[in-house]
């Protein structure tokens, strides 16, 4: 099940808006640990109404895909390695570097 944050992010992107969470964010998600799960505590996305439950539910499938791809991105990033090491790798043998990167992508495909 896609997280509330992911669905909010997709909802905002679909409406050409940017959402951010955290200390300086414009949307605050809260969970009072009372079994009701997370909910939108405050909504501050300028020019866009707070989504309804049905609007959020419509992003469930896309949200799952996004989260799956996020996991792939994280795996790929880890396997790519340090950017400085990659630059050294490129300088020494760019073709070998390209082949290694392609294998990482092929081994970890996005949905």
């Amino acid at each position, binding site marked *: 099940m896609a*997280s509330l*944050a992911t669905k909010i992010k997709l909802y905002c992107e679909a409406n050409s808006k940017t959402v951010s969470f955290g200390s300086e964010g414009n949307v605050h998600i*809260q969970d009072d640990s009372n079994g009701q799960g997370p909910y939108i505590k405050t909504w501050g996305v300028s020019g866009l109404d707070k989504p309804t439950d049905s609007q959020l539910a419509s992003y469930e499938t896309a949200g799952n895909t996004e989260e799956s791809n996020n996991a792939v991105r994280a795996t790929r990033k880890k396997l790519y390695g340090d950017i400085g090491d990659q630059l050294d790798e490129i300088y020494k043998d760019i073709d070998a570097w390209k082949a290694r990167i392609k294998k990482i992508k092929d081994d970890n495909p996005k949905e």
Partner: protein
Amino acid sequence: MAYIGPEPAESFTSFATQEFSTSATTSYTLDHAVANENEIALFVNNVRQQPGSGKAYTATGTALTLSAATASTDTMYCVFLGRALQTVTPATNSITAAMVGNDLISGKDALTSAPASTDELLISDAGTIKRIDAQFFQSTPAFHAFLSADQDSLSDAATVKMQINSETYDSGTVYDNSSNYRFTPGVAGKYFIYGAALISSAASANLREAEVYIYKNGSSIGKSTFNYVDQYSQVATPTISIVDVADDNDYYELYAQLNTQNSGNWKALGDSTQQRTYFGAYKIIGV
């Protein structure tokens, strides 16, 4: 009447008396031992008797001996002339420091446990002795608790109440460690409130931002943040300490938040012995 020197304390003095149940006998027992018969005045049928050997009576120790037996219809009582009973109530403000023994406190029984909040102490208030409740010298209400096991499957970017469940102490039963996980001091005052959350994004290079909050009556009044947006991490322990003024029904809670890179869940780490995520507070005294 004028005096040379301080005026002596005045008081009434009374003498010990004893009434006897009379019978046809010459021997009676006194309540108090005397050296001789001259230390008592004996009355039979309200007529004072002459003391001395060969007279109406003699006395020594507690033995009273009459020269002639009484009858059961007689009334008899004596006054102990040498045994004055005197009770003096000191005049207001007349007991000074010099009259008080140094063992005034140490000579009394020791309280063997922490004093109750309503126990009282003596204090000099700008030179005037007053009594004060012990609570003004106690940093209570107070509590400390920690998370005994992981609080898991927490949503990305959600600010989640920490279910701090294992109490180290809870003076005054002010922390709810099983339902609402909140500190309700119940006593107005200034409080030092602290907390920490060891939170994990469950994967390396996945933690974007970690935060811990103290909520008061449902709204944040304090926040501590670690931001890793340019260099993602995995685990962080934001800590927070604040001072707040509470009334008698305010309540406080500890919340935490973690933003993940992969939009996945996060968790707050707990342990039964090693304190990783904790929450506490105590009343500040003297302010």
